[in-house]
């Protein structure tokens, strides 16, 4: 994957399966968003190919793809005074379900994400964190009735959220995976990633340097070499290791 003569992603062989939560971590500029955009069929890879359930995006078709893959980009630009429930309802656009069914699905998503208190608010008057929760709800709403076998791609979903809502989101991600969906997310908080992801991939300078179970991937050596800071990794026995920052420079 190249752009402006810079290789953004290099020989990345990556897959995400149904029923699992995969977290992608790595330093700024490592290529995480580029990887997400390639997987989301937003930008074509300069070489190599993208397969979804064994098929290429053109084989699947634009609308059918929207019924199998839902994507949350890093920034959203919605600047019009829609009501919150209208924004969430936009997730139903690719479907041919009846408006009665759509309303029911939107309501279920609102209930499961505890958004009821703000559904009648005007989107443009919400805080950054609230907007993000609404966008997450819209993306979940898109595949709510076909989440078994569907794929969710979230690019830094937790960045604007407070700690409680980060945890709530990651629990939602887990339950989507439990229902049979494949969930892929870019996240900076390694300690949350180790607790909630089945698999972690570390991306550094356009390459996947490590991909596997949290306990195998998140090691002191790996974190220190990728991020260039001094750390300590504890709680490995629990299966969800915790990274403690010791200093700003590696020894």
């Amino acid at each position, binding site marked *: 994957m190249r752009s402006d003569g810079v290789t953004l992603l290099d020989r990345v062989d990556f897959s995400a399966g149904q029923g699992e939560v995969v977290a992608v971590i790595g330093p700024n500029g490592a290529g995480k968003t580029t990887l997400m955009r390639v997987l989301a069929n937003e930008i074509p890879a300069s070489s190599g190919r993208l397969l979804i359930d064994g098929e290429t995006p053109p084989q699947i078709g634009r609308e059918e793809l929207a019924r199998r893959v839902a*994507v949350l980009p890093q920034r959203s630009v919605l*600047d019009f005074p829609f009501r919150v429930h209208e924004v969430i309802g936009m997730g139903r656009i690719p479907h041919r379900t009846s408006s009665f069914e759509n309303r029911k699905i939107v309501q279920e998503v609102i209930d499961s994400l505890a958004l009821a208190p703000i559904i009648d608010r005007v989107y*443009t008057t919400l805080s950054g964190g609230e907007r993000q929760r609404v966008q997450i709800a819209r993306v979940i709403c898109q595949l709510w009735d076909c989440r078994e076998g569907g794929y969710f791609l979230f690019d830094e979903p937790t960045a604007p959220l407070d700690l409680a809502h980060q945890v709530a989101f990651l629990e939602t991600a887990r339950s989507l995976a439990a229902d049979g969906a494949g969930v892929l997310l870019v996240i900076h908080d390694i300690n949350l990633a180790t607790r909630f992801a089945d698999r972690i991939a570390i991306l550094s300078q356009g390459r996947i340097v490590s991909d596997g179970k949290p306990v195998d991937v998140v090691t002191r050596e790996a974190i220190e070499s990728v991020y260039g800071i001094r750390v300590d990794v504890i709680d490995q026995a629990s299966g969800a290791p915790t990274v403690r920052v010791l200093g700003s420079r590696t020894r």
Partner: protein
Amino acid sequence: MTRASLRLGLLVVALVVVASISLLMGPADVSILSLISGTAPESARVIVTDIRLPRTLLALLVGAGVATSGACIQGLFRNPLADPALIGVSSGAALFAAGFLVFGGTFGGIALVGLPVAAFVGGLAATLLVLEVGRRGGTISAMLLAGVAINAIAIAGVGLFSYLASDLQLRSVAFWALGSVGGANWRGVAAACVIPVAIGLMWRDANKLNAITLGDAEASHLGISVAALRRRIVVLTAFAVGIGVSLTGVIAFVGLVVPHLVRLSIGSNHRVLIPGAALLGAILLVLADCLGRIVVAPAELPIGILTALLGGPFFIYLIVEQKGKLGI
């Protein structure tokens, strides 16, 4: 949805009331009872059917077309400050109209097509140019900037024509630029019937327009072909506004202000925003025409002056008071 339908219903009632007032108002007294019972004198019937009815219908259709196009263009460009003029349609039409008014008499070929056709061709040509430059630029900003550039060129062209014009021609160029429905006739109304068709086609894309307000990438993840939608809406706008501008001259501000009023009072969902903007745009233009007929009677104030005079300050009020809800 029921609340929105109720408000749309109220707008329909208001439109009927305003249109009736427009039919009955004017220097000649016509009573509604005598019209319905058929006892009205022949002259009164002619005034209503040949002068006031086409005039009212033209104001109604053009107002609806300009306001709906404004709503769609704002959504398409995700820019609450966008208006149909931005894609070059108004200035392109104005350029060709000015050219017609100044040179129409000297070149037989131009004189043949008539002012409305010249204006419409100009509007469409400018829009297609903006669309093509935008396509090569690749982004929405490129298209917006192309619109700014084409606008500037067209306005300079109008200035050049004005400079070359005789005093008499200058007067008609200036008058056309102010906008007026005073010259309405049934042929114009027949041409303006393209406008409701364009509005209907825009309404069919309502859900897609909702999606594109989320962002181009988001819309394509919802299964929408963004490039095709953009092309469709821009061409429909060129028709709706181009026909309107060609018949009445430039109508300022309706395309910018009306969509905001509808978003604040009814909602941003294009399924209700489009019919709401069509109704409110029609009401406001018919109302502005009524006002224009009485404020300086027996003369008439061009409708474009009124829409800008009333719309401008009101829009400033909106910007100051409702900035959160306007999304600016």
